[in-house]
């Protein structure tokens, strides 16, 4: 299958160069020129350009970046902070780590541009604790940038102090949620905060704070090199640029790829330059399009483009770009159990529906998978999910943060395959027996 809209790479364009993760290599390909240019412009002009570019957050919510930046209060005398979310832990998602490993200076240059635009003199990069190697590469890049006079008392020679620090987490998915991330940065356990107030108004240390994903900020140098109009046109609808997606599961060629906003899920799965399809004789059963909390799609829904708004009519979401493919030999009950167990494990325990609901749903799913389930169990499952977060549409959750919604949304989505759940109940066993994981499920 060939692509209907060829993709001009931007985020990954220099990854094949092994020295792109050094300052020398980065600069040899035009690195830090966009920061220099930005420092000659008014901050307001930069925020306007980001708005015009239709850049949207790549962390999960797809929130327009320029709009978020404009929420920072202008008359607040407190210091302002930029926090970079490098917690990357939504199941299915593996993209930010490759930016850190292959092109960390694109993030650092983006940070320079963003901090100048926002008037922030301190940036914390919060990386998940398991990122030993990516964090080491990033630390080295930060040290290079300081040594070269890019960061510090002056930002690339301009009278604007900027300090950039990496802080490593210690293993907690919830710290990817932006207010839990702020709590963790403040040295506490990662308990999400009630919103409002939003971080832009009351964020880190009680000060105005912008939280952005690694990919969002790493995109800025290319965005300014090519121009905001070009970037908007490259995308589709209200989603500018390209995006990184991680393709996992039952495809011949899993991996992390840069796709266009017009690239369809079908192209991602089957195209030569991407997933190269499934093994002979296998067909797609379901695809989770945006990290494990995004409601699953059926094989009939794969014509959808990767653009952020395109998933709304399907009551799913583009999320964090984690595309998980399940083939026709894969057990949907077992798959859902695995997803919901994750949210049960990672619930921070603050809200009752999430703390009790996720483990409850996990237990029911295990029971059905093992052939001990009843029709009442299946009803209870849906009832619990609905009491946590009614559906459709997405976004009706009753909890402090969206982790509560996540497990519930996964359950709602998998009800597209309700027949398979009923089959488990009727046959009192898993129809897939000892091999529930499909085409590539055996360890070899």
């Amino acid at each position: 299958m060939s692509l209907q809209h060829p993709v001009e790479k931007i985020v990954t364009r220099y990854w094949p160069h092994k020295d792109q993760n050094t300052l020398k290599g980065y600069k040899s390909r035009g690195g830090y020129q966009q920061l220099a240019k930005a420092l000659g412009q008014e901050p307001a002009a930069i925020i306007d350009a980001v708005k015009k570019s239709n850049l949207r957050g790549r962390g999960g919510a797809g929130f327009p970046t320029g709009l978020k930046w404009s929420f920072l209060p202008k008359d607040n005398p407190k210091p302002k902070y930029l926090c970079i979310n490098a917690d990357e832990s939504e199941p299915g998602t593996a993209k930010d780590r490759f930016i850190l490993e292959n092109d960390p200076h694109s993030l650092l240059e983006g940070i320079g541009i963003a901090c100048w635009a926002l008037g922030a003199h301190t940036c914390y990069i919060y990386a998940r604790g398991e990122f030993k190697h990516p964090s080491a590469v990033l630390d080295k890049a930060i040290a290079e940038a300081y040594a070269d006079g890019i960061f510090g008392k002056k930002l690339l020679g301009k009278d604007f102090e900027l300090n950039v620090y990496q802080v490593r987490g210690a293993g907690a998915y919830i710290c990817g949620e932006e207010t839990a991330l702020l709590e963790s940065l403040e040295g506490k356990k990662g308990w999400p905060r009630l919103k409002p107030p939003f971080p832009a108004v009351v964020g880190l240390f009680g000060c105005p704070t912008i939280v952005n994903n690694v990919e969002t900020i790493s995109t800025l140098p290319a965005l300014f090199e090519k121009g905001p109009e070009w970037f908007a046109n490259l995308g589709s609808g209200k989603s500018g640029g390209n995006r990184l997606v991680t393709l996992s599961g039952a495809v011949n060629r899993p991996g992390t790829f840069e796709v266009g906003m017009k690239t369809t899920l079908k192209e991602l799965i089957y195209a030569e330059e991407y997933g190269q399809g499934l093994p002979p004789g296998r067909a797609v059963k379901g695809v989770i399009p945006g990290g494990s909390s995004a409601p699953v799609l059926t094989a009939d829904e794969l014509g959808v483009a990767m653009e952020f708004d395109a998933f709304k009519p399907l009551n799913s979401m583009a999320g964090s770009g984690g595309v998980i493919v399940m083939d026709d030999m894969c057990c949907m009950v077992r798959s859902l159990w695995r997803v919901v167990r994750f949210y049960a494990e990672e619930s921070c325990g603050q809200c009752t529906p999430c703390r009790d609901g996720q483990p409850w749903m996990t237990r029911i799913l295990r029971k059905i998978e093992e052939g001990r389930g009843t029709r009442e169990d299946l009803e209870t499952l849906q009832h619990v999910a609905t009491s946590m977060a009614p559906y459709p549409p997405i976004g009706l959750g009753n909890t402090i943060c969206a982790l509560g919604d996540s497990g519930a949304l996964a359950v709602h989505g998998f009800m597209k395959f309700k027949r398979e759940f009923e089959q488990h109940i009727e046959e009192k066993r898993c129809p897939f027996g000892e091999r529930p994981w499909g085409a590539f499920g055996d360890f070899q």
Partner: protein
Amino acid sequence: MEMHHAAMTADDTARLEQGIAKLLERYPKDRKSAAMLPALRLLQEIKGWLVPDGVKRVATLLETTPERAHEVATFYIMYFTEKPGRYVIDVCTNLPCALRGAEGMLKYMEAKLGTVAGTNGDKFYLRETECLASCGTAPCMQVNEDHHENLTKAKVDAILEKLS
């Protein structure tokens, strides 16, 4: 790292104090306790786990209470409030990895190491863990935080062989 003794030596304390002084440069002066996560990581690097005396010391240095330090130490799974086996092996069994054989891999390792996931032993502490951002390069695991991906039986054998 054979520093698994529970007591803080004078040398341990000096290293901790020096390290924390450096960490504090990154935070506002009135926000010392913000350094809690990196400070606990440092303690764990020095002692191999979060020895109670060390956690108290961290709390004092960050001008907060031992309870606060303990609360953080127990919230995050990468901190060990009890001495772990010499090799902590975290195997991801989340959905994308499971679709590439992770459940079989975990069973294979349990048999090979003669342990059951979740049991802390002297030599091995094998654990099931959640997504490690290797979904497109699955299955994967971490051995004492070193990341291994695209795993096969042959690769797992080679990795385990090196753990003496």
